């Protein structure tokens, strides 16, 4: 078990190498660079000499491979470089944005779980009855409203009308995380609810449910002890993907609510061709996906004896 976890974590090394190399290459292919972007933003016209010397200062005049290995060498020494744009240390800048993203991820996922799992299960159990139709209609509405629209609606009611939550986040607090988290949770819950319903219905149609009824086991017991556990395996897969993408930041919602997370940081870094910052972001994403997948695999094992015990037959 420990060996398995260690092996999976070691896989991170080649993944990081490949992915940072690829992103390095892709950013160069995308054209432009930090120097040009900076000029463009300030609207100044500068001579080629100035541009060249600015490039030389950042090392952008060197061949592509040299640039990559210089970056990699620094990384191995624990130095992720400084931002081309702000001149600040990349690692500490990135770190300063993480708490906001972590909090938003945690709260919105928690809300999503609390909303979508009970409603999805209820809809499945009451299939094709009034309750099911109501829940499905709500899910349809939630699905068809774009994020920014939900955000504006929430702002209007909760911030302007009821004055419960601030319009603009003032630091990281329970009050200011509420609206962005609810915005994300509405969209995700609407999607998950239907998947939870489908997964539970799929389980409920299996023979073993009839088998349990025949043994005189109550429906509630079968639902909680077997059906939900089996359906959870499917649901977990989906949740994992969402957690992964939430940890990568949510640029739109972050911008609307001025929530200072890694999503906006990443979009800005890409627009400005801030290579060291982009590399930090790419590495963060790779680490998230490997860890989140590992955690999912471990929970599958806990949930399903067929995975835990492997194919052992007697």
């Amino acid at each position, binding site marked *: 078990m420990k060996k398995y976890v260690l092996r999976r974590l070691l896989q991170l090394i080649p993944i990081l190498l490949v992915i940072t190399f690829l992103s390095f290459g892709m950013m160069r292919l995308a054209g432009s660079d930090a120097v040009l972007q900076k000029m463009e933003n300030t609207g100044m016209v500068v001579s080629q000499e100035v541009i060249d010397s600015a490039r030389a200062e950042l090392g952008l005049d060197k061949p592509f491979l040299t640039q990559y290995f210089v970056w990699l060498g620094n990384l191995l020494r624990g130095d992720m470089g400084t931002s081309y744009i702000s001149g600040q240390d990349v690692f500490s800048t990135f770190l300063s944005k993480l708490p906001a993203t972590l909090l938003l991820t945690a709260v919105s996922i928690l809300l999503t779980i609390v909303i979508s799992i009970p409603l999805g299960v209820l809809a499945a159990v009451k299939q094709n009855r009034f309750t099911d139709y109501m829940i499905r209609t709500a899910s349809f509405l939630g699905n068809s409203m774009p994020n920014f629209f939900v955000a504006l609606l929430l702002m209007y009611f909760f911030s302007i009308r009821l004055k419960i939550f601030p319009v603009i986040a003032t630091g990281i607090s329970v009050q200011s995380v509420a609206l962005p988290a609810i915005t994300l949770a509405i969209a995700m819950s609407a999607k998950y609810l239907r998947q939870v319903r489908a997964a539970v219905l799929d389980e409920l149609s*299996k*023979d*073993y449910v*009839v*088998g*349990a*009824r*025949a*043994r*005189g*086991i109550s429906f509630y017991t*079968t639902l909680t*002890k*077997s059906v939900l*556990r*089996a359906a959870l395996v499917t649901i977990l897969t989906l949740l994992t993907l969402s957690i992964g993408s939430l940890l990568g930041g949510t640029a739109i919602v972050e911008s609307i609510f001025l929530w200072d997370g890694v999503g906006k940081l990443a979009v800005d870094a890409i627009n400005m061709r801030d290579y060291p910052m982009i590399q930090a972001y790419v590495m963060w994403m790779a680490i998230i996906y490997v860890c989140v997948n590992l955690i999912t695999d471990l929970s599958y094992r806990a949930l*399903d*004896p*067929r995975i835990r*015990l492997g194919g*052992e*037959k*007697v």
Partner: protein
Amino acid sequence: MKRQPVLSVEDLSVSFRMYDTGLEQADLQVISNLTLDVCPGEIVAIAGSSGSGKSLLAHAVMGLLPGNASVTGKILYKGMLLSQKEKEKLRGKEIALVPQSVSYLDPLMTVGAQVTGRTPDEKTLKAQKEIFQRFHLKEGTEKLYPFQLSGGMARRILVSTAVLSNAQIILADEPTPGLDLEMAVEALKIFRELADEGKSVLLITHDIDLAFHIADRVAVFYAGTTVEIADAEDFQKGPKALRHPYSKALWEALPQNGFKPIPGFQPYAKDLPKGCLFSPRCPYKTEECEKEIPMTKVRGGYVRCIHAD
């Protein structure tokens, strides 16, 4: 005096509401006017080809039919008319099922918990050990999950579950396929012992040869109804002792009796023939046969054929 049956099925019909293309819906009648009873101490075999409604009968008795099924007729347990609520109360306790497939085992639960319940008492545990031994299931099998068992082992688990429930009647839906001869014989021996204790077994099988030899009475199923119910002895004697043309044809289709195939096919529920369900394949068919055919008593057995004598 006639003993009171443990289980009586009177004039049972089951149909499924099916949605065809679009909104058109059709009722698919899969069991028609089925009548059957099982007395204490008796093994009644149900013999019929696949698709004749054997499993559905068992599920109807247990209250396990899906939501789109509608049921008419009566099901009585010890003379008491069973509603769905009562079936739910009785199942697993007074009436037990050996399901037809090992897929009826819960994949996330150890087989021990399924056989004895999650919190068994001493007595149940002792009984479980005994029956596992009889079925050559090694010590420790109860801690395994279904996916760790071979098909034959899983089948023996299903039979053990029904036997341990202490039910008054066991509905065994094809309990022997996948078992080697020794284990199949052991299962049937256990059923006979239960019957000798005064319990009852409804043994569903498409192996009519087996049905003749182990049961007290045999009910022959055809297209969702009983066409003949008679003592097993009659089936051992042969066509002369039998009453229905289908039963006779079945007997003659057995390998040791000439392997004579029955021409034609069992009708599908979607287009059942008028009157006698066997009429399209029956050599003795007359015009009368297109009317409703009642179950009548002939030579001590019951038969659904107007020309039987």
